[in-house]
Every structure is written in structure tokens, then in C-alpha cells.
């Protein structure tokens, strides 16, 4: 099982559901595939995280465990069964 937790600012796009689970078919899965599958029926939520060009939105931070995926291989980072994904909005002022 891969657990995905999204910040409440993002969860408003999916009826405030914060916790999501994905049962991978393989021991290792690309992060993008995890998100595409887990948010298959939540198009507003998916587009709120990844824009139509396939890039993570500028002010969204995605962590695999405690590591920002920018320090890994981005959306092509490998996620193993049992790992946790956290998706946050960047902190802001004003």
C-alpha cells in the first residue's frame, strides 16, 4: 500500500479528503503513475497538483517520505510499496 496525504488547501478540490491509498501492482512504481491512478476520478485535484503540460505546479511541494522529489527524480521518482507521499502547498505571505 502507498499512502498519499494532501494538505487541506489542496484537499478542498476533492471534498476535503486528506488521505488516499493506492495498492500498486508492482513493488516499485513511478510517482506519476501513483498520482494518475489515485486521482483518476478527481480531475480538479490532479490538475491542481500537476498542470496540463505535465509539470508539478510551481507552488506545490511533493515529498516522498521526508525528501522533496526535486532532490530525487521528480515525478519519475520510484515509490516502493509501503512508502508515503506528502503533498503540500508552499508557504506564502500576505
Amino acid at each position, binding site marked *: 500500500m502507498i499512502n498519499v496525504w494532501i494538505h487541506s*488547501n*489542496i484537499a478542498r*478540490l476533492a471534498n476535503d479528503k486528506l488521505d488516499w491509498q493506492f495498492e500498486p501492482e508492482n513493488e516499485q512504481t513511478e510517482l506519476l503513475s501513483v498520482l494518475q491512478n489515485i486521482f483518476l476520478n478527481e*480531475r*480538479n485535484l490532479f*490538475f*491542481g*497538483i500537476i*498542470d*496540463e*503540460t505535465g*509539470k508539478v*505546479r*510551481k*507552488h*506545490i511541494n511533493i515529498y516522498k517520505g521526508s525528501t522533496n522529489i526535486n532532490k530525487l527524480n521528480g515525478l519519475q521518482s520510484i515509490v516502493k510499496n509501503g512508502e508515503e507521499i506528502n503533498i503540500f*502547498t*508552499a508557504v*506564502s505571505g500576505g
Partner: protein
Amino acid sequence: MQIYFGTLKGLFRATKTSDVWKIDSPKFAGQMVYSIAKHGKRLWSAPFTEWTGTQISYSDDAGESWNAIAEPIAFPEDTETALEKIWQITADSSGKLFCGVQPAALFTSDDNGETWDLCRGLWNHPHRKEWNPGYGGLGLHTILPITDKIWIVAISSGGAYRTEDAGETWTACNNAIVAPFMPDPTTIPEFGQCVHKIAVDPTNPNLMILQHHWGVYRSVDIGKTWQNVGENKLPSDFGFVSVMNAKDTAFIIPIKADIERFFPEEKMRVYRTRDAGETWQALANGLPQEGVFDCVLRDSFHASGENLAFGTTGGNAYFTSDNGETWDKIAEHLPRITCVRVFES
């Protein structure tokens, strides 16, 4: 009557009961709202955050509750472009919906907003790659569906464009509009103007009043040609808004200067013409006339008959029920106001 205020931190609704205006708690709290539209009983808006982008949303209960459309509006894959912001939603009399976005592009929907199509005719226009973003971004912020075939749009900064075949082909229509921010201000470019807003006479669609980034212009031929009708008649011909609500009747709100975005002489004044721009009359009864450092943005002024309302970047809102003769302050301390719409219930 209800007045909607889109702001940088949510959508506020004002309703009047027993001569008292009540401002409801915001919808889309914390999100930017640049567009509000109504067709039939349905309201449309597009809340936006820098975090999660924009979601076109609708309400069938006068703004009490909102639902996002199921399939988000998006640029087609082959454009390799991401939608940044929605500046304008509007509908024509048939219910066709139009959406103006940043980066500058036009989308339309013929199925009540369920799906949206990029207007390829405008997207593929050879001028597009030469349009330059203004301070607020490269946005298509004004959409005027004059007939089912003739539409006019305005882009900052690209200028005004006109189609006569429902978006298949477009022609720049910035004749006579001076662009003092271009390298040679004595030459009028074909495009590149920063048209801030265009309003159409509700009794005569040939007549339009255009507020440019310097200059107030009139067209009597559905935007094909323009004449300056503001020079030496106004305390400043810089501004953002243009509203028309009756035959030959338009309203603008002059702003001091390009950088000094305050009211001229620190006085909040609306200017009205009743002769299509030949003469302008200051309307100030009820508006503050001393030490006012405020501004009104392009979509923050709207009319429904003789009822008009505008909102300021300082979060103040004013209303008139007598075509601008007298004004009442109906809200203050709101976030920066980015759009205003007045709808009869």
C-alpha cells in the same frame, strides 16, 4: 438585487434589505476571483490560487453553493502551454460561454461549461507571439460577443481583435489608438496596444467606448475604427474601466497616471457621457473628495440599468441607483477588489 465582489481573497455578495446592505461571508475564501458571469439563473466564476491553479465553478442558488466543473479547462497538449489564470467569463444570448485566460487565449463552450475548446483561430494568429505581458500578465480580459459571428476581444498587451466568422479568423482593430509606451509613440502600431476595457452600447452595438492605457476612444462601427473622445475633456485619460448602460451613455473612472494609480487630485470621481463621449460630466455626490489614494481595476465597475457599483483596490465599494447622480458606500475593508457584477435577483 445582488452585487458580487470578486477579490484577491474570495467572492463576497452584497444584498440590500430594508435599506441596509449586508455583506455575506466570502465564498472561495482565500482564493482570487477575477471573473463573475451570469446566464439565466446560473452564476459562473473561476477562483484561482497560485498553488493549485483555477477551477471554473458554477452556482444555481445565487452564489450560496458552488460546484467546480468536472473536467478542468486546460490547454490542448499540442500547445505545450499551461493555463495560468482566468480573467473573464461571459455568455452570449444563446448561452454559448466564453472564457478569456492568461496566457492570452480564448476558450468557448457550447455545452454549458462541461467542456471547453481553445479558439484556434486566435491562438494561431501570427501576432500572438509578439504580444507582451503587462504588469498583471498577458491576459485576454475582455470578450464582447456582438452577434453569433462577430466577437471582439481585448488583450493586455496585444490590443483589440475582431472576428466576423465566430473565431475562425481575427483582425487587429486598434486603428487610431496611440500606444505611448511603445518605442515610437508617434506611430500607431497595428497591434500591441494595452486596451484595458471596451463597453458596448446596449441599444446600439455599433457604438463602443474603449479605455486604453492612456486614451479614451469611441467606435461607431463595431470596433473597426476608433476616435479619441477623452483628450482635454477629463482630468486624466488613463484608467481601467468602461461601462455602458443606455443609449450613448458611458461611464469611466480616470486614474492619475500610469505609475501613480490614484484618483486625480485625490478625489474619487466617476465620469459620465450621455452623448457618446462628446462631453463628460463628473459625478462625485457621495464619493470622498479629499485625500483619496485608491484605484478601480478593469472589471470592478458594472451596471444593471441605472444601478451601478464599483469596487476599489483599497477594498471599498460604492453603489448608485440613480445612474450615478448619488453614490452610497456599501462596503469597506474588503480585500483588493478585482471584479464587480450587479445582478437583478
